[in-house]
């Protein structure tokens, strides 16, 4: 894939990456290397200038309802949480379930389950401003998981957290991965990346290397420019 912006700047300069179902992949590299851009393309928040994102073999350009893809297939966690400041924790988790088949009762039950899962039981009526940074990130993770996505995408999820909170968040990702979820985590922190099955190293919009930590043949990364 290539993603070019105005004046010819290439955020992604010909990358080819395959991520298998159930993998936990960490994408690392210095700031501006294209990690987040790649994540945004996978999340269908942006489109590649050339090339394609194939999900389950289907080109995202041919997906008619990208909202449904983002809602049902992908769970997104941002570095700065991106919670709705005026809505309580519970509503912040439920918000992604509007427009799904779940009733209001089911949405509430699901949100409460997830909040318990991320150790936020009892905090459902608080506003984001009343939570610590780590707690807010865990709300964001609960929200990302609300529609049982197949793919969890996290963009620097521990970037603004202290080490204890960061460890807690990482453990959550590991537990979801252990349950079979595909996790793609963008981080510039090699300590965090070390928790993944596979580390993909990027620089200047290209994949420059990769390490398979638990690798089988299937998880060995495609390395280097296409």
């Amino acid at each position, binding site marked *: 894939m290539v993603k070019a912006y105005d004046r010819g700047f290439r955020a992604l300069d010909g990358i080819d990456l395959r991520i298998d179902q159930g993998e936990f992949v960490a994408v690392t590299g210095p700031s501006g290397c294209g990690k987040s851009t790649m994540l*945004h393309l996978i*999340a269908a*928040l*942006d489109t590649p200038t050339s090339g394609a994102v194939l999900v389950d073999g289907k080109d995202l350009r041919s997906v008619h*309802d990208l*909202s*449904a*893809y*983002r*809602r*049902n297939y992908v769970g*997104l966690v*941002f570095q700065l949480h*991106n919670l*709705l*400041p*005026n*809505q*309580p924790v*519970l*509503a912040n988790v*439920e*918000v*992604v379930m*509007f*427009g799904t088949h779940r009733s*209001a009762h089911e*949405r*509430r039950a699901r949100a409460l389950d997830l909040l318990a899962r991320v150790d936020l039981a009892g905090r459902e009526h608080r506003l984001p401003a009343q939570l610590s940074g780590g707690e807010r990130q865990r709300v964001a993770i609960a*929200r990302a998981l609300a*529609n049982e996505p197949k793919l969890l995408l996290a963009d620097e999820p521990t970037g603004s957290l202290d080490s204890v909170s960061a460890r807690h968040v990482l453990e959550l990702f590991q537990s979801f991965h252990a349950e079979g979820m595909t996790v793609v985590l963008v981080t510039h922190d090699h300590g965090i990346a070390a928790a993944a099955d596979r580390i993909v190293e990027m620089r200047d919009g290209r994949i420059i290397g990769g390490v398979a930590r638990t690798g089988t043949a299937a998880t060995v990364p495609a390395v280097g420019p296409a």
Partner: protein
Amino acid sequence: MAFGRFLLRGLWAKKARSLGLTFAITFAVMTVVTLEVTSSGLEQSAAAVVTIGKADFTVAQKGVNDLLSSSIDRGELARLRAVPGVQRAIGVLVATERINAANPVFIEIGINPADLAAFGVTVVAGHPFAPTATDQVMLGWRAASNLGLHVGSRFHADGTWNTVTGIYSTGNSFGDSAAMFPLPAVQGYNRLPGTVTLAFVKDDPGVSVHTVTARVDHELPELTTIQTASQFGRADLNLVYLRAAVTGSTILAIVIGAVIVGNTMLLSLFERTRELGLLRAVGWTRRRVVGLLVGESLVLAILGAAVGVGLSFAVTALLERLPALVGILHANYTTSAFIRALATAVGMTILGSLYPSVRAALLVPLRALNYD
């Protein structure tokens, strides 16, 4: 959490914006409803005169500015009576006079006493006036009660002191709040000899009113027939102008309100770009984002309509007490006023939220998320 609750919480969180929008809607609705109920009241008061007599329809001069300026002479009245299907046509002269501060527009009706029964007048006390008397009057029972007069009292009107010979009832509040004089006396005082303002027509049994009115309209083209208050504009151009002014003011209020709503929503859109971008990023459809914005506006529209109607009650009550309008302005709260209130609120909200909603729908999630 239900979507509605989510929406309400968003409104509550932005109280200043919500209040600003509600105020704009309230003001527009209050203006529209107040204009509607007061103009409708004026219209009803003016048109009430044609509902006094027990007639199938009323005839007046066509195209006058004010119904009380209508003039039907003896010859026209005779031709009207000769129209096939007309059983009788009672000519009355209607005038107004300031009696006191509480009765600035007191209605005086000149009528021949022989026509009283046919006109639907029942004398409930005393007796009718003499046909050519110049100092006798009958008061409607409401007027007598309001003025504190009874049979034998003296009542100054029509330029002279009159003796109250009787108290009458018509079964019509407007008629019962008036006074009746011998027709020649009112014609003389108003210097309109041989002239009446209106003719109240009763048809022959078995003849359709439509047929007779069509004949009258054909044979007396200088006159017009009125069956209902809504046809009143045929004989009173002031009401036509009034209706046009109300419609124009309503449109203006809606446009101004819509501009305020649109401006506030657009500012709100800039303020909420990141939030809306996030909602799109986590899978909200364009339709749902638009639904959120329009839903918020509609909630405020309904709130604004309710407050606007309430305020219009208060404003109208104040207007009715203004010395210059006492006895003239009577608010008439009709269903159409409330429908117009709701239509105004919803109309201006939809109009105002159209452009901001389209812009919100077209937000690119990633760009919106990075918006500063």
